């Protein structure tokens, strides 16, 4: 018996290892919470090193781009001087519009609603080492009031939601992740559905509509519907690029270009609390992420 085991020991160990790995794959494909918790723990430990690495990368890129920019700066400067003259005249008009806007906001009670948005800024310190999964690590955790399930946004639109939070860092699942799903609304046709992540390489989202006659058209704006437990209503997701019907016309699917440029993402906002209803957060309305 002992001879048999020692003879087939290598094969036995190899088969055992493959079995353990297969079982692990099978289990982790179903149960995600504890696994991501472990990942967050590891990331909490190595977050200073990750931050340093990201800083080196950013600074190197910045240095290189600065050298390149010198050649275009003179040209840009002349164009900016022309624009400045134009904006000076616009400023006068804008101050009048702002005064009127402020008065109308007061009338509608929006100021109160906007005041109730509580946003926590956070920096992205690392990304998932696997290219197929779209999660990022941010430098804010439970100590800063960030908890699992909170939505993460930038001025351009929805980024994702917190799926695991450690004391100093949190893991955010981006809306591009294959396991991400958001309740969404086509603003023009008022059709509802679920926006699903596809693949980070494609960089596009799939809008699975509930109705087979949804009347969604390319160019339509898609926002969060508020039906999801994680995302407040009215946050911008993206714009419809194309619409496809399945073979029997029973379902309609749209492809969405996300409003957020995920390649340029550096700083995000974690939505710690928000008012009920369809008011938009105060940071929305353009800008640089």
């Amino acid at each position, binding site marked *: 018996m002992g001879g048999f085991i020692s003879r087939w020991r290598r094969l036995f160990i190899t088969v055992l290892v493959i079995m353990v790995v297969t079982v692990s*794959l099978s289990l982790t494909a179903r149960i995600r919470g504890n696994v991501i918790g472990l990942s967050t723990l590891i990331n909490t430990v190595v977050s200073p090193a990750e931050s340093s690495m*990201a800083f080196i990368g950013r600074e190197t890129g910045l240095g290189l781009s600065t050298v390149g920019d010198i050649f275009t700066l003179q040209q840009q400067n002349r164009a900016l001087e022309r624009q400045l003259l134009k904006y000076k005249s616009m400023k006068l008009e804008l101050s009048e519009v702002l005064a009127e806007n402020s008065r109308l906001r007061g009338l509608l009670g929006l100021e109160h609603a906007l005041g109730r948005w509580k946003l926590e800024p956070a920096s992205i310190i690392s990304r998932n080492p696997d290219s197929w999964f779209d999660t990022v690590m941010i430098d804010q955790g439970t100590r800063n009031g960030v908890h699992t399930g909170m939505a993460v946004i930038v001025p351009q639109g929805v980024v994702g939601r917190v799926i695991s939070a450690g004391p100093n860092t949190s893991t955010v699942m981006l809306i591009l992740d294959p396991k991400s799903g958001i309740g969404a609304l086509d603003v023009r046709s008022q059709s509802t559905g679920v926006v699903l992540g596809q693949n980070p390489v494609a*960089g596009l989202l799939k809008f699975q509509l509930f109705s087979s006659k949804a009347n969604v058209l390319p160019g339509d704006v898609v926002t969060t519907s508020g039906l999801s437990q994680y995302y407040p209503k009215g946050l911008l997701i993206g714009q419809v690029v194309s619409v496809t019907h399945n073979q029997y016309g029973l379902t309609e699917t749209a492809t969405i270009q996300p409003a957020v440029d995920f390649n340029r993402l550096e700083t995000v906002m974690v939505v710690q609390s928000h008012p009920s209803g369809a008011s938009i957060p105060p940071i929305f309305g353009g800008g640089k992420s």
Partner: protein
Amino acid sequence: MNRLRIGTWLILYLLALLIQVGLLPQIYPMGYVPNAVLSVTVLIALHETPKRGMWAGLLGGLMQDLWAGRLIGLNALTFALLGYGVAWVQQKIVRDPIFVPGLIAALSQVVVVPFQWVLLYIFGYHFSWLMFSRPLPVWILFSMLFTPALGGIVGFGTRRNRKGSAGYRSLSL
């Protein structure tokens, strides 16, 4: 035998992972970030016996899996097999410190991508193959350049090189 210690493997994998999650995403767009762990696995396997190559791959893959926190075993299985395969192949081919690591890393990339696509498909991630394989040329190029460069930086040669032979050897099949 001039074998690498497990501590060295750990440090190399840790550095590779830090580069992969912190530095490379600043350079490559999302979905195109290359796998530095693969390069380290190839480098270690070129330096070890098949058995140790497999254990090194398993360790590196497991570290990446735990770091990613999604499918534990995906990279562990992939890189364990890769480590074994590369170490087995390196016993039978011409070896040099630049072209062989680069070529083997590029070939490994070609093998690893479809293998992981199949594994992910089995475990419920149905990616389109066309999309999935789109970054492959970028990754191949990265592996071809990064692996010998990393080998040079950390002072790796192949196993037989380190035994005192010249850099280039004839075929020893």
